[in-house]
């Protein structure tokens, strides 16, 4: 194997001789690599943000809400009818193998009072399963249990936003809040979840036991004692979401005595599908950006080719001399190839630096989340090396096949 070291030394010297020219040639590669890294980072950031939002809703989540009902030709909007019951929830868990948890919930907006403060927020009546489905954690204090639900105890878990507004950030655990004049003891504070994909504040919420909510807050009528607003369902895994939906649809239609000609009296929402679409469009965008950025890298490569052709012409006599003292075709080829690759790799290294800086600036100034993946950096770097080889080959070949006599006599 021919030692590369002398070629690298010669290349270094040649590049140093024409500092400005080398730097400008590198600039093309620097911009190309930096653009690739920055755009991939922005694209990956967008994808990661969507994934994070999906995860914040709870994993493998299916939401069942009551559907519209038609009464005397008047069609009511969805969610009005109280067609879903706690029994439906229990039946789903028992009979649908693709479902791991079903958590019935009710919700209502209410004014909440604590001491001198009051705050309008969303009161949700839930079972302990709800925390699992939504991937909620109690940051401080304790969660409520099945006994709280069975006994309809007056305990509450507060979201971060509620805590901030009712207790000015102080410790609410053990304090009393009043919802519709019913006193509740705060037993815990939920970990912050941030915004939902729809832009709602997921921390502006109070969780109370489902039974308590129905009896003390919502005042549910006797006729529909078991009715619930929503059933949150978790499929056993992400692949089982469609199976779970099919099983639940069949089960609910049967339980609700619907004829084949009748529409469903409930609606299922599978958020992952919605966000998967968003995610894939973000990904297409990211790929598109990266492709455009790669074009600039190719333009940089053409710059390298151009300058290497100039360099070969300028150094024709040097090439002739090297041939006269015994340089083989391959030696000359290697020397100029190393020079071209040196430009592109040095440009690539500088480009990584610029790309990292650009990503940092973008996420700082534009508040776009960026995710830097080592793979994309490595890929951009390797690609810059390939650009050097590809665009350096023609000039190097031209140098290697010069006629020694003509080259030595070249003026």
């Amino acid at each position, binding site marked *: 194997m021919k*030692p590369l070291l*002398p070629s690298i030394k010669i290349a270094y*010297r040649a590049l140093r*001789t024409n500092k400005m020219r080398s730097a400008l040639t590198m600039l093309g590669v620097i911009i190309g690599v930096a653009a690739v890294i920055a755009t991939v980072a922005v694209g990956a950031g967008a994808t990661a943000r969507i994934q994070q939002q999906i995860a914040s809703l709870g994993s493998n989540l299916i939401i069942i809400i009551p559907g519209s009902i038609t009464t005397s030709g008047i069609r009511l909007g969805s969610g009005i009818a109280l067609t879903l019951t706690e029994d439906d929830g229990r039946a789903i868990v028992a009979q649908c193998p693709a479902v791991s948890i079903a958590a019935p919930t009710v919700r209502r907006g209410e004014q909440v009072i604590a001491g001198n403060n009051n705050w309008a927020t969303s009161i949700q009546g839930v079972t302990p399963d709800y925390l699992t489905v939504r991937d909620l954690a109690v940051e401080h204090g304790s969660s409520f249990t099945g006994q709280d639900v069975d006994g309809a105890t007056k305990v509450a878990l507060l979201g971060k936003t509620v805590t901030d507004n009712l207790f000015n950030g102080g410790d609410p655990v053990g304090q009393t809040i009043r919802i519709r004049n019913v006193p509740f003891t705060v037993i815990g504070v939920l970990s912050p979840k941030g915004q939902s994909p729809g832009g709602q504040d997921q921390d502006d919420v109070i969780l109370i036991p489902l039974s308590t909510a129905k009896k003390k807050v919502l005042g549910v009528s006797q006729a529909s004692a078991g009715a619930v607003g929503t059933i949150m369902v978790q499929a056993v895994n992400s692949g089982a979401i469609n199976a779970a939906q099919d099983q639940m649809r069949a089960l609910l239609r049967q339980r609700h005595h619907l004829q084949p000609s009748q529409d469903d009296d409930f609606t299922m929402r599978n958020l992952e599908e919605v966000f998967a679409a968003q995610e894939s469009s973000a990904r297409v965008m990211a790929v598109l950006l990266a492709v455009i950025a790669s074009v600039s890298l190719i333009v940089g490569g053409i710059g390298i080719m151009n300058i290497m052709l100039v360099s070969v012409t300028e150094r024709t*006599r*040097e090439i002739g*001399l*090297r*041939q*006269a*003292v*015994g*340089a*083989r*075709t*391959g*030696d000359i080829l290697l020397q100029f190839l190393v020079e071209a690759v040196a430009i592109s790799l040095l440009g690539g290294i500088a480009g990584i630096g610029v790309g990292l800086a650009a990503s940092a600036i973008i996420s700082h100034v534009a508040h776009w989340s960026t995710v830097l993946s080592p793979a994309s950096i490595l890929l951009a770097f390797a690609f810059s090396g390939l650009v050097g080889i590809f665009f350096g080959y023609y000039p190097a070949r031209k140098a290697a096949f010069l*006629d*020694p*006599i003509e080259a*030595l006599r070249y003026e």
Partner: protein
Amino acid sequence: MRTRRKISAYYPIGGPLPFDTWLPTWTVTTALQVPVAENQLAEIRNNKLDLVFQNFNLLPRTSAVENVELPLLYTRDAEIDRRQRALFALRLVGLSDLAHHHPNQLSGGQQQRVAIARSLVNNPEIILGDEPTGALDSRTSIEIMAIFQKLNRDSGITMIIVTHEPDIAAHAGRIIRFKDGRVVEDRTVPEPRNAARELAAMPVEASLEEQQMVLS
């Protein structure tokens, strides 16, 4: 064009040859115009036959010793100590002190001596001189011829020199005269001029170093 290239000094012909038979083979293949791969030519240029040019052809912005190392970069043998061999070659031409000077810091005679050191660093069997004294004044020319004679005598390197100057030619043991591409005379010289003795006999107007300063 192909045929002319074959006869030229830059295109010696040879194969993977035993040490002492490459020259006859070269002659035969040249006469028969057998094409030989470029890389074999390169190998011969590298270590059998080296060149000294009229215009020196040193690499600019490169020190004397690095210029001398140049042929060693293209030698297959990876074990050689290039720097040591180059310094030794420079010592043979009397330039040890100027090893790290760049060509633009050297006089014409010194540059030509660097070029000679470069040609002999690979222990060639033949050095071809393409008017090696053409760009030098007469005293420096004789100095160069003294080096050639010493290399021929001490190292057994065959020197083939093209020149227009009869004074320079008189240093050779055999003179072949061409006119319009035809040999018009081929004679051996029984007693060639001895360049070293001439130098010693020359009036010492200035020391060698000072004179070189003036020349540069």
